[in-house]
């Protein structure tokens, strides 16, 4: 009876059957998380844009060297780590464990380089006197929200990258020891690409719209 019902549903015009998305529950769960986290970042980015448009002036403190060069390098590292991540997923699906773990380690290296450069940028700005509640620049007085939005947005993103590096480390260890499946690698890839995707919006909004013109 149950088999007959499943067959009828499976052969319906909808074609969804009992697995309408034809993906595993882990992957679907990660997709739902990604969408909800995308809304979190969207709300923050809209709030940042709101504050920026509603403020009579806004600091443009990032010189080409080193800030924009570093931020562009960070983008390069994240994009490249996404490339190594898809290659890791491909290798995992082919059952090439050693190669998949190698690509995962490469992805972690890209993420770590991103965090290192970002922390260097943070320390530089903190040394200049930037705080979440105040800006140190005489050219742009009374713009305390710059610090709050900068540290809030980039900090939340950096936290995501740091969690991603640890997550990929766990997955690499488990997949290398045959404890995790290729689906686990693919699910971790979804998370990693999402972190990359968010940076594609933070980089232009925070950095490129605040470049210091010569």
């Amino acid at each position: 009876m149950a088999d007959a019902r499943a067959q009828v549903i499976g052969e319906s015009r909808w074609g969804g059957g009992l697995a309408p998305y034809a993906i595993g529950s882990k992957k679907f769960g990660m997709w739902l998380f990604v969408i909800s986290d995308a809304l979190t970042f969207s709300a923050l980015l809209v709030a940042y844009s709101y504050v920026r448009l509603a403020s009579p002036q806004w600091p443009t403190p990032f010189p080409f060297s080193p800030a924009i060069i570093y931020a562009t390098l960070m983008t390069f590292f994240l994009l490249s780590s996404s490339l190594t991540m898809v290659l890791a997923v491909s290798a995992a699906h082919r059952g090439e464990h050693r190669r998949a773990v190698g690509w995962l380690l490469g992805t972690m290296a890209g993420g770590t380089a991103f965090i290192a450069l970002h922390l260097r940028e943070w320390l530089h700005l903190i040394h200049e006197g930037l705080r979440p509640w105040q800006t140190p620049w005489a050219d742009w007085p009374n713009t305390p929200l710059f610090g709050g939005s900068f540290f809030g947005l980039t900090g939340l993103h950096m936290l995501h990258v740091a969690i991603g590096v640890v997550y990929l480390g766990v997955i690499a260890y488990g997949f290398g020891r045959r404890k995790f499946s290729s689906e686990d690698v693919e699910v971790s890839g979804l998370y990693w690409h999402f972190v990359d995707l968010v940076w594609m919006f933070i980089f232009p909004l925070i950095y490129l719209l605040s470049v210091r013109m010569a």
Partner: protein
Amino acid sequence: MSGTASAGHTQAGSRLYVWVWGWLLAFTGVEVYLAYLHLPVPLMLVLLMGLSVIKGGLIVAYFMHLRFERFSLFLTLIPALVFSICIILIFFFPDSLRLNELGPALR
């Protein structure tokens, strides 16, 4: 295990991923170039966000393999997200611009 996505992986191949990566880097280069043109902020915002949406689309479609998944997954996830973001934008942005115009009067 998702057979569809695995098939997508096999079909796509490494060369496609390298192409997408190259395009993403190229778009990033264009964004950095645009930042140094003396354009009005609203126009700059539209151009940069337009390029970012294209980059995001490439990442979701190819790196996250949504292009190789069932269309039902796309329909479940993306329209709701886009709708929610549009609602946030529609309700908030006119207010931020109005605040800017009222700024001198309020100070």
